[in-house]
């Protein structure tokens, strides 16, 4: 009898063990960080050729970000302009993850109708698509906006291709004198327009958060003074022309105040100016030290600034209401020119080491410092409004020019080598 039970028990056991096998699970850990392959098909043209090659601008924008790897034109297997034209299988063969197509039509010569569609090649789904109507003068800006949308759809981050850069150029005249200009350009360096021209130096441009005004330092009256200028109208006013130096203006996040450096009390100190009322309040009170280069934290309550109160320039943090300053930088003998990322977590700075100056970032929570650049002649770091890239001034083959580096140090590029000396860059806020 027991042998029968044994038999039954054995068979049940076998059955149970068979069923205990759950569904197979495979873990994928790691992955590569190479640039995303994307196919950008030149937009179809209806009517006379549009004055601006939109897909070309988009291709350059995305490639320059270092995050995308646009397919070379010769590898594009077909020429679709809308969904119906697309055979996704073909594009999968090319291993391209994204596909951008579009159309431009010019009917009456003045207005241009533009549409684009962005597809996920493997899922055969549309990720983004829009239709626009713009005059010829707005086509370039529209191309940058499309770049922003493509960038955001594929990376999840905000694109900054429609933003602007402000910077100072210097040209030597034939008689040896110099001509200074404050200029504003597109984020790719194209289309520079002069906002101020002077025979005397211009320094430290700073954007208002609404992107409509610039503040800067001008030596037109023989000494450094601070001005505010409206971009559209060109109207400008002097906001600080006190005895001594007036310099390093920085706009508060709400646009109502300027932090600035004044030495009217005998040595350079940080002040906050309420622009509307003109009221000045003093932040630092160290009569032995140079305190300058104040920038606002995104919460609008604290300032980062450069001070040599410890002997050589280092970066400190202080409440806008004044009080004790907390030192932030402890590596290297020279740290200056702070700028803060939009999320308030990363600080960019000029880091001096053995007589050379590099751009570095420091995580404000951990205090860990990472040097990003290599030439040793770098200055004036300025964060992009998506916190991903830092714009700065450097030198290449004897010429001063601008360069950009990603915040993790992996992607580097130089902005144009026009032949004029360019310095003092400032990245505009996002367009509202």
């Amino acid at each position, binding site marked *: 009898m027991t042998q029968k039970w044994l038999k039954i028990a054995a068979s049940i056991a076998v059955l149970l063990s068979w069923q205990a096998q759950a569904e197979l699970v495979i873990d994928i850990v790691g992955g590569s960080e190479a640039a995303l392959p994307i196919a950008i098909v030149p937009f179809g043209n209806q009517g006379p050729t549009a004055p601006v090659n939109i897909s070309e601008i988009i291709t350059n924008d995305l490639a320059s970000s270092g995050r995308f790897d646009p397919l070379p034109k010769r590898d594009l297997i077909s020429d679709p302009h809308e969904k119906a034209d697309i055979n996704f299988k073909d594009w999968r063969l090319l291993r391209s993850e994204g596909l951008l197509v579009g159309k431009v039509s010019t009917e009456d010569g003045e207005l241009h109708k533009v549409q684009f569609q962005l597809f996920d090649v493997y899922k055969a789904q549309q990720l983004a698509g829009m239709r626009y109507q713009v005059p010829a003068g707005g086509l370039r800006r529209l191309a940058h906006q499309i770049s922003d949308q493509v960038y955001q759809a594929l990376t999840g981050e905000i694109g900054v291709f429609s933003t602007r850069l402000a910077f100072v150029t210097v040209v030597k005249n034939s008689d040896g004198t110099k001509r200074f200009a404050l200029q504003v350009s597109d984020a790719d360096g194209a289309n520079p327009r002069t906002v101020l021209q002077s025979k005397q*130096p211009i*320094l430290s441009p700073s954007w208002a958060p609404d992107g409509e005004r610039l503040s800067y330092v001008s*030596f037109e009256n023989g000494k450094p003074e601070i001005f505010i200028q409206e971009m559209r109208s060109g109207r400008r006013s002097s906001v600080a022309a006190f005895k001594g130096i007036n*310099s390093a203006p920085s706009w508060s996040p709400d646009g109502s105040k300027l932090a600035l450096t004044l030495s009217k009390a005998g040595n350079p100190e940080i002040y906050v100016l309420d622009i509307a009322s003109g009221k000045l309040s003093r932040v630092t009170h160290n009569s032995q030290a140079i305190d*300058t*280069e104040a920038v606002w934290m995104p919460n609008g309550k604290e300032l980062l600034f*450069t001070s040599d109160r410890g002997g050589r320039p280092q970066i400190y943090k202080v409440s806008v209401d004044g009080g004790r300053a907390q030192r932030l930088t402890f590596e290297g003998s020279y740290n200056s020119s702070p700028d803060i990322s939009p999320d308030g977590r990363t600080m960019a700075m000029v880091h001096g080491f053995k007589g050379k*100056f590099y751009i570095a970032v420091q995580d404000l929570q951990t205090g860990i410092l990472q040097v990003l650049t290599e030439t040793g002649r770098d*200055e*004036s770091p300025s964060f992009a409004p998506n916190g991903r890239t830092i714009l700065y001034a450097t030198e290449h083959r004897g010429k001063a020019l601008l360069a950009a580096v990603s915040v993790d140090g992996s992607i580097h590029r130089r902005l144009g080598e026009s032949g004029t000396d360019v310095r003092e860059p400032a990245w505009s806020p996002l367009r509202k």
Partner: protein
Amino acid sequence: MKLLKLVVLLLSLIGFVGCTTTGGTQAGAGQNGDGVVVEDRTGETSGIDDQYTSGTGIDGVETQVIVGEGEYTGNEINDPNSPLANRVVYFDYDSSSVREDDIPTLEAHAAYLADNPNVTIRLIGHTDERGSREYNLALGERRALSIRQILMLQGASIQQFQVTSFGEERPAVEGFDENAWQQNRRVELIYIGQ
């Protein structure tokens, strides 16, 4: 040796004896018989320089006419040989302390300012191009202020000063080596209206 000395002695004695019989002229003011004093000027020197010509005027009174290099008529501030002609003071890297060798220059300027309280001077501070532009703007001012302090200690008064800084924006020499840098770390002294 002894013999030689003797010979010299004897010869000199003879010489003296000979002198007694012949007589001779002597320099020095002596008296004429009637008491008129005659001055003999050959061999005498007067005045500060060797380069001068003397002319005789009336009754033996001379007028001194000064010509040649080294001496200057006019305002001492424009005299190219005076320490006041030195209008730039240089500095070491990252320093706003005045060098020892420049103290005499500054003393001369301070003295001139103290003597001429209506004169205004402009001090412009500069730095070399290394480091942050804004920090260098402040550092240039610090250098100019340290010059002002020295001049005021030596007698100049604060109303005579205009102090400003151009930081690294106005280099005297363009370049990226110590030769250029050391010529750019400076304070310029500019007299207003001269």
